[in-house]
């Protein structure tokens, strides 16, 4: 059924090699004279670009096969095998992974190119590209892994790179703390992944622990174990894709360089959780109750993050919360068993969110690292390309027809309604309106009205072509990729859903066309209302308001970070010092303390016999000998 394609392993290997070479060069030279930036730039872009071309080859090779046979695999070697457990270091390209593969390498390459401009002149230029290449390699392993364990390699690898890149400006403690937070929170999710994977193995993995074998045996899962596996794996997804309650790391992750936020914390890594749930659709589709939990967690995350997003003043924080919110949509999608809709939203979101982040990066670059939107304004005239591209991104994010975000978001909401979750649909529409509001609040404050900081405004200028060209390409994508999955009502044929069908296990419900039209109308109305309110409030310039009441609560993110700090981190540290200050010396060591005490005490007790005079010792001797002789004579007689 599946064909072998012996170049699949090369796709992640290329960026990984790039990372190794750049990393070594940087490591060996950075304390002396740094190498020229051109060298690093060229080395860094080779790997991603080659991977992108190979991804296209994979896509076309799959396209030329019969739809139900679209599986390419490459197993270079057995990774480890113990007892029933047999794990191959294997790669699998099917419609699902090939789609991910193409857009990850495409956006990855664009962001590499953009970074050449953005990072120019920075210290540790080489290190940055080494990490970025490493990230891409890990992400490709995640996407291509043919089983949960190989997937987990990429899963943890991207977590590591995320840590390294968030704390890239290591001299500032806050950045490193943000990196630590990301890594640790991700690890909490990883615990769920590892446990879910282990349960899965003992349940159905002994005949083969790769996706295709698991898929064949998925019907053997008993309800209890299957449900537990679904939820445990979802915990992993929560960590990686920033869902309640593990979303807290993502806003802090904006401490990294902006292209990193675009690539890792918007377009690729954070969508890994959605990808994983879709990968395991053969299990999730058996347990709709677990799916419902996922959908509700997702939509509530979307709502919460949208509330936070409405009150932020840091341009990257706004985008970060919008990412969390959009990820919530994706989980709502995969939760209601609309896997292809969820994945399609991953796909479109990658374009418009990467675009928005890169646009924000251009703004930040132009304003010399100013990120507060209340210090911007009127940049439309100074940065026309950035403005135009970001406007497309904002429209796509808000879900304005005919931009890509509209089709994917609407598909999710419609599927929620069609699969019998009107509550999720309603919140989804509400969030769509809020999204439109905060996105355009940001757009108006940054680009319209009067300049609030005159000096910065005067120095602002459009960034170099190496940064604007990726923006334009992404803008074209954000505007157009929606057509790949046009639903029937717009005269399309759902090509992406059909393409993904062999990889996923999902059912398309049949619903009346009026319901569909009603749903579309509702979300368009929400978007229009959102944009209108934003225009009314911020369209003609506005002053920074003093947050009170609910707005203050929203601005401070409901004090979730503070609550986590007080409820988890501080107790954790307190237990640590309690153990090392009190338990370790006083309680755990008690048995040692007791025996030394016993020895000392009994020594003291016997001390009285040690008078120090030899003749007294002689008396003891005589007494001892007498007693001995007495007993001896007794026994002889």
């Amino acid at each position, binding site marked *: 059924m599946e064909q072998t394609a012996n170049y699949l392993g090369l796709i992640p290997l290329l960026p990984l090699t790039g990372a190794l070479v750049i990393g070594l060069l940087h490591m060996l030279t950075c304390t002396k004279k740094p190498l020229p930036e051109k060298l690093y730039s060229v080395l860094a872009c080779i790997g991603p670009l080659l991977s992108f071309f190979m991804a296209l080859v994979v896509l076309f090779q799959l396209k030329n096969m019969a739809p139900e046979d679209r599986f390419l695999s490459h197993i270079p070697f057995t990774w480890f095998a113990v007892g029933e457990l047999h794990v191959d*270091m294997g790669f699998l390209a099917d419609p699902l992974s090939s789609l991910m593969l193409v857009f990850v390498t495409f956006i990855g390459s664009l962001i590499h190119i953009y970074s050449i401009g953005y990072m120019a002149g920075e210290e540790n230029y080489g290190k940055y590209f080494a990490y970025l290449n490493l990230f891409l390699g890990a992400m490709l392993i995640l996407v291509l892994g043919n089983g949960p364990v190989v997937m987990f390699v990429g899963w943890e690898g991207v977590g590591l790179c995320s840590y390294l890149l968030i704390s890239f400006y290591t001299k500032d403690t806050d950045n490193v703390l943000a990196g630590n937070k990301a890594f640790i929170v991700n690890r909490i999710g990883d*615990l769920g992944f590892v446990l879910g994977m282990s349960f899965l193995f003992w349940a159905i993995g002994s005949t083969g622990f790769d996706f295709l074998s698991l898929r064949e045996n998925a019907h053997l899962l008993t309800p209890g174990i299957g449900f537990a596996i679904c939820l445990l794996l979802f915990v992993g997804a929560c960590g990686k894709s920033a869902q309640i309650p593990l979303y807290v790391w993502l806003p802090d992750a904006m401490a990294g360089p902006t292209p990193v936020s675009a690539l890792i914390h918007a377009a690729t890594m954070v969508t890994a959780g959605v990808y994983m749930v879709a990968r395991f659709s053969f299990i999730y589709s058996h347990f709709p109750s677990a799916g419902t939990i996922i959908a509700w967690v997702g939509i509530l995350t979307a709502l919460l993050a949208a509330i936070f997003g409405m009150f932020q003043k840091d341009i990257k924080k706004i985008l970060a919360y919008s990412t969390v919110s959009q990820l919530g949509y994706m989980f709502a999608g995969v939760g209601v068993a609309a896997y292809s809709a969820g994945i399609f939203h991953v796909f479109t979101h990658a374009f418009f969110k990467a675009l928005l982040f890169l646009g924000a990066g251009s703004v930040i670059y132009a304003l010399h690292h100013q990120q507060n939107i209340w210090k911007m304004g009127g940049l439309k005239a100074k940065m026309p390309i950035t403005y135009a591209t970001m406007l497309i991104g904002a429209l796509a994010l808000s879900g304005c027809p005919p931009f890509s975000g509209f089709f994917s978001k609407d598909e999710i909401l419609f599927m929620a309604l069609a699969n019998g979750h009107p509550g999720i649909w309603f919140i989804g529409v509400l969030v769509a309106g809020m999204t439109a509001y905060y996105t355009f609040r940001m757009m108006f404050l940054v680009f319209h009205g009067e300049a609030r900081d005159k000096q910065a405004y005067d120095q602002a200028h459009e960034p170099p072509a190496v940064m604007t060209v990726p923006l334009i390409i992404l803008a074209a994508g954000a505007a157009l990729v929606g057509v790949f999955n046009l639903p029937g009502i717009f005269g399309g044929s759902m090509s992406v859903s059909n393409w993904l069908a062999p990889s996923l296990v999902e059912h398309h419900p049949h619903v009346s066309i009026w319901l569909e039209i009603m749903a579309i109308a509702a979300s368009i109305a929400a978007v229009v209302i959102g944009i209108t309110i934003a225009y009314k409030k911020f369209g003609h310039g506005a002053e920074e308001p003093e947050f009170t009441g609910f707005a203050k609560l929203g601005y401070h993110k409901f004090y979730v970070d503070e609550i986590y700090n007080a409820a988890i981190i501080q107790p954790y540290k307190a237990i640590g010092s309690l153990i090392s200050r009190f338990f*370790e010396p006083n309680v755990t060591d008690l048995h*040692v303390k007791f025996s030394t005490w016993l020895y000392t005490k009994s020594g003291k007790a016997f001390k009285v016999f040690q008078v120090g005079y030899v003749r007294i010792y002689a008396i003891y001797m005589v007494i001892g000998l007498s007693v001995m002789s007495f007993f001896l004579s007794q026994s002889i007689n």
Partner: protein
Amino acid sequence: MFEYALSVIIFLPILTGLALLLFPLRGGVARAVGFIVSVIILFIGIELFLGFNGKSGMEYTEFHQWIPSLGVNYALGIDGISLLVMVAATFLFPMVFSIFKTRTKGFYGNLLLAQGAMLGAICSTDLILFYVFWEIMLLPIFFMIGIYGGDKRLSATLKLTIYTIAGSLLMLAAIIYVGTSYHEQFGKWSFNIADLQALSLSGGFAITAFLMFMVAFAIKIPLFPFHTWLPDGYTEAPTATTFILSAIMAKIGVYGVIRFVIPVFEVEFTRFAILFSLLGIAGMLYCGLAAIAQKDIKRLLAFSSASHMGIIALGVFCMNVQALSGCLFQIMAHATSTGVLFLFVGLMEERLGTRNIDDLGGIAYRAPIFATFFAIAMLASVGLPGTSGFIGEFLIILGAIKFNAFIGFLAGTTLIIGVCYMLWMFQRVFFEKGKERTESFADLNGMEILTFVPVILLIIGMGIFPQTFLEKIEPTAQQHVAQLTAVSASQIADTTVQNPGHTNHKN
């Protein structure tokens, strides 16, 4: 050609070590001699590893009578269980000689003695011979900490030595019990582990003897709550010694349980497995939590090492092939990650004269190579996939889940706990703003890079190609587990058959 290879790797270092102690030499010469000897042993070790065919039996066996009247023999051999411990003990010593340059000849002599004794304990297949090496192993450690250690070395040495000897004496008593039981049941004396497997022990005495064995090994591992010698011992010992203690000696404790306790006390082991696995978990959590509050890097690593040993020990008690193989693999992985971290801390201390986390910072800017190597070892120690640490930890967690889902879950928390203190430490030592003291920190020099590169490659190699190692240990682990489950199952069946019989009799 390798007929006497095991004897050579045991006695070459012991004899050279004694010679170094006897003859008046300068420290530099002694170091050179030690380095050459350890490299020779390294090559023999590599040859032994490559030549090992892993068909679940003993290989490279040697057999000579020693005390025939008591059936005590000089019997050596390597199988899948001891292979990786042996590899760790042969691979890691040259590093110590190449890095620590300023010690006296006594120190290098003791190092060699320690290596010989450890290899002896690892290769013995006779209980008495094992006991002899087990005790000899302690002597050089005693001198190294007592003479060359830190400020509070005396109390640390005494605590360690008395603690360990107390355990050893319990073990000696248990060994005598096992030997006499064998004599009673088979009419001849033998302490050979292959013979002792046939022994069937039951009753209160057997449980007592089992617990005595376990206490001895638990102290060495160290298993919670017998770990209290460790923080002081590891911190006060010279770094080379800490490295040996953590990388090899602790592992011999785990190895001892697998080699000598499981085959003899199958029933008792099965009965107490859950208790001891909980102790492993408790140690992992307890030491992991304690690590976060440490101010001294070495002490932090000491707790981290104890925490990981809890997980490794857990692998033994889960009684399935995944966990056992994972445990054996992790023995080597832990030696190359946490063990090597101790060496890095030693280097740092030699350069800066401090181990206090608050005095450090910004080392990554001065010494990128050092920071990178440290980071790789650290990531292996927290079990990142692609490094050696992941395979072992994953197999152990996987096995633990089969053994008991709740214990498996608790074992999994090691993923989180380890990363918390390690990242926090890494941040404050390597990142943030540089301190005055770290301004002049010199990066690794050529010789040091040359020393560490093989280990770094090994860490990554073991993560990507673990099958090279696993395929050699898996058959033995498989056989061990099969034996354990078969015997304990039949014992349980026996008791259930016997019990109705008893009641009938009474009626």
